[in-house]
């Protein structure tokens, strides 16, 4: 390319990183460092399991999930999404434990051969609350954090760019593959494939779709590999990042406090507290 032309020179005006790259979130909670939000979600989920009982998880959810969700303005979406997520498990868990709790004495209800028991009800409620807590914590993270933000933050801290690449590409590949599956489904339907009806029919309907989707994706591996290597992907070591989410020592302290608190909680529970 000739010297002085636009290919080797500078852009016409001095422009920095555009503001749509790494756009900060709408609320203060959104703008927290992604690692903080991830730690919070994970610690909340594990703590909900560790605390056990009914009161513990409910208090935890109020503090760690509902409060921040309110502050972030996502409470409505959170409730809808978390409930949706937890619903199948919750129903299963509730029914299974309510009716099929062996060794229980207090019978509440008897329907034919199966009985609902009070112990079963207690256990079922515990599991329900626990699942809702986990679901809420995870959904809060999902609603307030873009996946790319978390991977950029981890990469900034030293995670290999290749791991970050796999994580980011996975997130984009899922909807892309679903779309392709939809296209193949439509094409197969046009050729007479039956996708409605009994379970057996639906299972049989899955196979002529799954095969082409998987094989088609694998066939692209060679091309994608070449395209990536043509853009310097094989260079070992770190790469430049256009931006990174801000962090503060207060947040770092908070993260450590959460982790230590969790360890203390688990140790206490192992030791037998509270009863």
């Amino acid at each position, binding site marked *: 390319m000739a010297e002085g032309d636009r290919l080797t020179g500078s852009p016409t005006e001095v422009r920095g*990183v555009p503001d749509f790259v790494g756009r900060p979130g709408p609320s203060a909670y959104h703008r927290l460092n992604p690692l903080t939000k991830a730690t919070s979600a994970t610690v909340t989920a594990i703590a909900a399991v560790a605390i056990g009982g009914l009161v513990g998880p409910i208090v935890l959810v109020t503090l760690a999930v509902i409060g921040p969700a309110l502050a972030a303005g996502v409470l409505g979406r959170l409730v809808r999404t978390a409930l949706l997520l937890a619903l199948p498990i919750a129903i299963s868990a509730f029914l299974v434990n309510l009716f099929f709790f062996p060794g229980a004495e207090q019978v509440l209800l008897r329907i034919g051969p199966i009985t609902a028991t009070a112990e079963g009800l207690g256990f079922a409620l515990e599991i329900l609350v626990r699942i809702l807590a986990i679901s809420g914590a995870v959904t809060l993270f999902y609603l307030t954090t873009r996946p790319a933000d978390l991977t950029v933050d981890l990469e900034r801290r030293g995670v290999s760019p290749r791991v970050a690449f796999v994580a980011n590409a996975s997130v984009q590949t899922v909807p892309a593959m679903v779309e392709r599956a939809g296209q193949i489904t439509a094409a197969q339907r046009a050729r007479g494939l039956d996708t409605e009806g009994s379970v057996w029919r639906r299972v049989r309907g899955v196979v002529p779709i799954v095969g082409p989707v998987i094989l088609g994706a694998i066939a692209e591996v060679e091309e*994608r590999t*070449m*395209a990536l290597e043509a853009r*310097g992907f094989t260079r070992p*070591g770190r790469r*430049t990042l*256009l931006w990174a989410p801000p962090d503060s020592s207060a947040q770092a302290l908070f993260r450590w406090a959460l982790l230590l608190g969790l360890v203390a909680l688990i140790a206490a529970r192992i030791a037998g507290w509270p009863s």
Partner: protein
Amino acid sequence: MAVLTISLAGVGYRYAGATGPALLDVDLELAEGEVLGLVGASEAGKTTLCLVVSGLAPRTVGGQIRGRITLDGEDVDAWPMHRLSQRIGTGFQNPATQLSQVTSSVFEEVAFGPMNLALPRDEVVARTWTALESLRIDDLADRDPQRLSGGQQQLVALAGLLAMRPGHLVLDEPTAQLDPAGTRLVGDAIERLAADGASILVAEQKTDLLAAICSRVAVIDAGRVALVGPAADVLADPRLADFGVTEPSPVRLGRAAESAGIADARLTEALARG
């Protein structure tokens, strides 16, 4: 960046596990500011030659090579792919598989290459904007690359290559999978690059495009360079059809007129020269 000449001397290549060579005895040179077209029937070796020139064969693709490839006299045999990718940029047919799938905006997509090179951030940003502007797609900077048309995606891929500031571009049938609108979009972009003095090796079936931009054209047949010379000569050569190549429309027009008795061979040649 100084542009260096790529030279292939006696180059042969065979894919891993293949019985015979895909390329044999190839002597070719791509000099500064030159646009070299590559034509041939499908499976004749166009793609293989592109991969060999760019270094992807044998580095990424495997297989074995013979002969010498030099960049202004320096043997590049031991160069790793990421070093070679800064000198030679490679574009492929399928626009969608060239996207990295880790970016949510065209800007970040184009910046992907320079980021991999660990250049300072300002340098990355400057190169990205330059590349976007040179292809006139800076208005697409905030768009999601997955949601663009094929032609636009191909331009984004091209911009991503330009951001690496290579001395040469190797493009393997860039318009093959595009609709007419996309073909025009990408064809115009390549014409502008060529007019600006870029060094391009472009393999194409669409000889009209090559007629417009190439200074020289090479014909590949069964893994060997059957013909190479000035574009107008090669594209008007009557043997093209034997090699499975469609002549450019002016040439076809001229020949049709000839056989209809309306014109003579000199008119055909004049048409071929554009």
